[in-house]
């Protein structure tokens, strides 16, 4: 069954059809939530909330990009979470080990098929990028995640964030400049492969 048929069935209340859409989009929504929030547990909560909200609002979906529609819902869930975070104490961004110490290479990003070195590089890159993303203001963060990480065109990102196209353009440019500065500052921490690519880009 294709996506539009699944959406139509889900709109009629077919939960199984909706769950097939959930399976297709859950990685994308979780990634988006993680990049915006920076915390796996909060990202999982936001993703779950987004899917529940999407099912409840499904009748209001009037066509267009379903991916952009879902991304708008998960971004709103993330904004809600960020607002809640402001009202309560901060939680650590990386999971803690049994000794309450932050884990160097969290197991939740470890790829069992990769070598230990590759895993370490991947984790370092992930953390470096995530730190830089988290240094951006939330509105910039959402634009970067939707356009750069999820690959939405400007128009769809503008629709997803309910923001004018010009604002998306300027926020993305500002975010890229800030990220560039941030990545330069942590250059030594970046994996060798990345440094090589960086050199070639320059």
């Amino acid at each position, binding site marked *: 069954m294709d996506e539009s048929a699944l959406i139509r069935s889900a709109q009629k209340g077919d939960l199984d059809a909706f769950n097939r859409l959930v399976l297709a989009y859950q990685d994308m929504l979780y*990634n988006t939530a993680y990049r915006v929030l920076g915390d796996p547990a909060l990202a999982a909560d936001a993703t779950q909330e987004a899917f529940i909200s999407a099912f409840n609002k499904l009748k209001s979906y009037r066509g267009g990009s379903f991916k952009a529609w879902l991304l708008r819902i998960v971004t709103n869930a993330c904004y809600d979470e960020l607002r809640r975070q402001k009202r309560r104490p901060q939680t650590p961004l990386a999971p803690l080990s049994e000794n309450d110490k932050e884990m160097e290479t969290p197991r*939740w990003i470890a790829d069992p098929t990769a070598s230990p070195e590759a895993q370490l590089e991947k984790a370092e890159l992930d953390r470096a990028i995530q730190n830089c993303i988290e240094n951006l203001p939330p509105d910039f963060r959402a634009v970067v995640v939707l356009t750069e990480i999820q690959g939405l065109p400007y128009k769809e990102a503008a629709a997803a964030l309910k923001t004018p196209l010009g604002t998306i353009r300027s926020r993305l440019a500002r975010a890229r400049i800030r990220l560039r500065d941030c990545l330069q500052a942590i250059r030594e921490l970046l994996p060798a492969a990345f440094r090589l690519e960086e050199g070639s880009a320059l």
Partner: protein
Amino acid sequence: MSKKPSFRDLTQLSAYLDGELSASAQKRIKDRLARDPEFATALDDLRLSRTVLRRTPQRRAPRNFTLSPQMVAKRPPMPRLVPALNYASLAMVLLFVFSFLAPVGTGGVANQELAAAPMAMEMEEMPAPALAEEAPEMAAEPAADSAMEEEAAPAEEEAGLAERTTPLPTAEGVQAEKTDANAAVPASAMPEPEPQLLLTGYQRALVIFLGVSVFLSWALRRATIAKWRKKLS
């Protein structure tokens, strides 16, 4: 001549990088890139950021986020009888309230008024000659009793009765006074009727049906929720 790109230039460059500019704007950028090395360096910087972000590892969801019926169902579907009973209850409450406002037939207010002052109304409606006719019968009672009762009757009651009863013609004043005194005895001996709400048969039926309707709705709702929870668990 080369100058440091402004923020507007960088925004244009960023959009150029993503192919989000119009054809004419793209041509302008290309021309400037060819002759402005600082502009080209700024483009490389933006490209680097984009490359890094696009290389960001994609995380897999830590678990499945599929929804269960319990997650999405705020309440179980209720049988059609439940809303019907609710509307019926509401209608009965309204009818009950309106029955007190109705001027004829079912008015509870009228009953209440009648119950509160039956004696006064009887006396008001009774014509003076009728009182005079009753007087000889009253006078047949022993004179001593009458005198004692006259003394015993409190002045307040006399005043109250004088207000409530219709003034009699002056010619029959004395006789009327005796009559009043005699009449005062049974009136004061009787307890004042307590003001109470008397419901008509119609109102009682409404109350009973309302009770039954509310109970049935509650029981049905409760049974449906219990069944729904059992089904989910």
